[in-house]
């Protein structure tokens, strides 16, 4: 029996050891981190599936745990992503300024995650959330910019504050800090308040429209091995709060309905749709591969929101499956980009090209990840999108439908762009000496490739587990057998699709192999309308890939950023005012103001 408490304490202890080891030797500390995370993952996987975790608390004061399918599902996915990413640490840490504390913070944030998903107490939840935020906040600025951390922190804190207020209202109404009892006790106006506050928290964490600004900044500038964690794991915290808000408080908020849905849910669905569309459009425009994937995370967050706001089993199944599929795909894609960035030192697509000839395995990993991300069979993303589409179509939600279809086709466009500009195209001279990533980094790559395919071909087992969650949430699960999934308006057999795809490819391969062998020519020996070009940069199409499309929404695309920039400007001005008032050189003025404020605050109570 693995105890959650012990695991958390183990992680804290391991963090300290990792800190010491890393100080001594970066590589050793990182290897230790891998084993620590692996230990947590193995114990979680070994006992968690059967709901056999020990949730008693002996040492930590004021903290209580409980075990739910929901919490476990999130926890196992996130721990898995952490495990995969930890394999990258040995090769990256040496570049960072505060490399000693990197592993410590990494493990501490994992401890926070375990706690957050296993707790049943709101205050504990808040505490663990804060632990995650504070640890990761110090991880992010190790990458390119400190601004990123500030923006991440700002939005996270905004979400936390919203959640805290929601928690207080809940406590006020129900008199308990227990998550499930508390939320169940809500009704009427209070329920609406809590719903809205929780949704704000969820949106801030998930990086959904309109609280998405931090997402590309943080993802794009985070350290390369941390971006997969951000996108594949931490963003899912928002999904967790979203589930709490949308499903647990849901029926209470039903003032009136739209399309058989409570209005709150419907609004969330519409906002989720906007998140999809906005994320897609921005991703198409983006030039930095990591930022592009960050916007894609935003778009996929929209799918998750849409799925959870349609209150039926099939949509939930789609949503939960999407969380898994996107975590795998996004981790895979980010890790491939990280491998490229390690080899070349950049993630800007216009500076890269032809990496496929140097890093074929990384390329394959990226390819499989994006196929899943675009929702093409036989990968996991297809299953979840299929389930979500079923729900949307059955509800007849036209505008949400436009968004999900748009996002689904649009994801083709943006995931293809790094593929074309970064991996394919001309082989650039400056990267002639680049080599494939080392073996240790290829291990998680292979595992993720395999899992992406597995989730797409044999979703039965996972869906059965998801059914447990759905039942736990009080809805009926979907019909699923080993090979077939029964939707409301159709049957899907992913294994059959996989098989047929293999057969088709086999036929194509036969045709290919029977015919005459081709002559290999250089990449530069290409059609140039019979002109001579000897600079491969001139033949590499990477800049402004979707220029005609971008031009159509160029003017509209920046208003959100502008709004937030203006807001930040205002906040800064306010800060300056405060600084001017309080921090003036004249010390007596400062003292005067401080006294004045204290008096003002205590006015009602004391004076």
């Amino acid at each position, binding site marked *: 029996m693995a105890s959650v408490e012990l695991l958390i304490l183990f992680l804290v202890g391991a963090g300290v050891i990792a800190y010491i080891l890393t100080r001594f030797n970066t590589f050793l500390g990182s290897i230790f981190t891998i084993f620590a995370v692996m230990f947590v993952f193995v114990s979680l996987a070994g006992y968690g599936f059967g709901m056999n975790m020990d949730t008693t608390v002996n040492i930590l004061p004021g903290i209580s745990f409980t075990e739910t399918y929901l919490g476990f599902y999130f926890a196992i996915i996130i721990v898995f992503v952490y495990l995969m990413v930890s394999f990258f640490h040995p090769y990256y840490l040496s570049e960072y300024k505060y490399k000693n504390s990197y592993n410590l913070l990494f493990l501490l944030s994992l401890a926070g995650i375990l706690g957050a998903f296993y707790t049943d107490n709101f205050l504990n939840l808040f505490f663990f959330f804060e632990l995650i935020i504070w640890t990761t906040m110090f991880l992010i600025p190790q990458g390119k910019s400190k601004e990123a951390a500030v923006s991440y922190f700002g939005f996270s804190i905004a979400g936390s504050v919203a959640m805290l207020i929601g928690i207080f209202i809940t406590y006020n109404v129900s008199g308990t800090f227990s998550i499930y009892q508390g939320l169940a006790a809500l009704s009427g106006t209070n329920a609406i308040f809590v719903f809205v506050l929780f949704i704000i928290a969820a949106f801030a964490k998930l990086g959904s429209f309109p609280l998405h600004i931090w997402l590309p900044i943080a993802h794009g500038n985070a350290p390369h091995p941390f971006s997969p964690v951000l996108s594949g794991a931490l963003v899912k915290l928002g999904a967790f709060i979203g589930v709490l808000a949308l499903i647990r408080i849901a029926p209470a908020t039903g003032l009136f309905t739209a399309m058989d849905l409570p209005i709150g849910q419907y609004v969330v669905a519409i906002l989720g749709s906007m998140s999809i569309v906005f994320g897609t459009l921005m991703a198409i425009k983006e030039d930095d591969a990591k930022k592009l994937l960050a916007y894609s995370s935003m778009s996929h967050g929209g799918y998750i929101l849409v799925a959870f706001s349609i209150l039926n089993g099939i949509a939930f199944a789609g949503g939960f499956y999407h969380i898994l599929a996107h975590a795998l795909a996004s981790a895979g894609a980010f890790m491939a980009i990280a491998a490229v960035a390690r080899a070349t030192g950049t993630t800007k697509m216009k500076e890269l090209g032809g990496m496929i000839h140097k890093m074929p395995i990384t390329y394959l990993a990226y390819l499989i990840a994006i196929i899943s991300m675009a929702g093409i069979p036989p990968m996991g993303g297809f299953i979840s999108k299929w389930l979500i589409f079923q729900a949307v179509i059955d509800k007849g939600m036209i505008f949400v439908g436009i968004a999900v279809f748009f996002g689904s086709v649009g994801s083709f466009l943006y995931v293809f762009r790094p593929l074309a500009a970064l991996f394919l195209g001309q082989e650039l001279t400056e990267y002639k000496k680049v080599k494939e990533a080392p073996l240790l980094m290829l291990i998680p790559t292979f595992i993720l490739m395999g899992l992406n395919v597995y989730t797409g071909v044999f979703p039965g087992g996972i869906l059965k587990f998801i059914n447990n969650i759905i039942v736990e949430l009080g809805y009926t699960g979907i019909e699923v057998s080993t090979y077939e999934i029964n939707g409301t308006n159709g049957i899907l057999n992913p294994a*059959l699709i996989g098989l047929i795809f293999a057969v088709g490819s086999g036929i194509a391969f036969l045709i290919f192999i029977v015919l005459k062998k081709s002559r290999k020519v250089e990449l530069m020996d290409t059609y140039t309308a019979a002109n001579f070009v000897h600079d491969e940069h001139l033949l590499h199409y990477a800049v402004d890939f979707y220029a005609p499309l971008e031009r159509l929404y160029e003017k509209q695309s920046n208003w959100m950023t502008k709004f937030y920039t203006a807001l930040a400007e205002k906040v800064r001005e306010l800060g300056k005012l405060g600084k001017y008032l309080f921090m003036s050189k004249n010390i007596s003025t400062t003292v005067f103001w401080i006294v004045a404020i204290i008096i003002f605050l205590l006015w009602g109570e004391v004076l």
Partner: protein
Amino acid sequence: MILNILIGIGIAFFGFVLQTSIAGINRKIVGRLQKRHGPRWYQEFIDIFKLLSKRSITHGWIFDFGVIMALGGIIATAMFMPLTNNFLAFENFDNFFIFVYLIAVGMLGMAMSASGSGNPWASIGVMRALTTMLAYEVPFLIVVLTIINLTGNSSLTEIMLYQQASGNNWFLIALPIGGLVGFIALMGMLGKKPFETYVAPAEIASGPMVEYGGKQLGMLFIMNEISAFIEVSLFVHLFLGGATNIFEFLIKYFVVYTLANLISSVNGRFKIDQVVKFFYKWPLIMAVTQAVIAIYFGWVI
């Protein structure tokens, strides 16, 4: 299972032969429109086999791998396609979304291979193909959403049976606006003018195909024919009530493809952003109107 797979392969092969012959006949018809003789009707076959017999070039493994993936994906898609309401390889598994998404594997393979050739024209062509796809898919899927919402089933045979059951009440007639949108989207899918932005020989030197010759080009031709077969069949099944026997299917297929081709032959092509603008203006508005009318008001002719 083996038998089913063999039937599936048979359907894919049939689709290839059918579409290639009809494309050949259409070349002749368009030839007559242009006041000339036109080629032999089996010219398309000769072209493809000639290409397969040539000694081609390759730009590296991704160039070949993409082609195999493209053709494989398309063959796999075609294997799920029902020909009539009771003739299909895999009973119950002809889900509409399989076609939309599995066909994308082929597209992705071709796009990958084309970009892998390192030619800028090819990348531009791929960019245009993907952008065009973004344009036509959404209105088309909204119309299909309406249809699936009405029939309550996303299986193509079920949709066919639904139309045939109520006295050949084709969705082209039941949902006239949607049918029109479907046809426009079909033109986009088939790459017919005015939406033929991605081949455009005189602008971008035949786009994605720019570096292909010999067997790779031949395989892409086969892929192109089979994907045309899938797209036209989808239209026939979704909007024209499918078919109860093979001859009905052939006639409907021929009419749809020929009509698209004739419209194509007297139009110029749009620029790529005009295609996007066009599809997100009228067809999308029409599709949404149709969906609202059909789903919320229940007005179905």
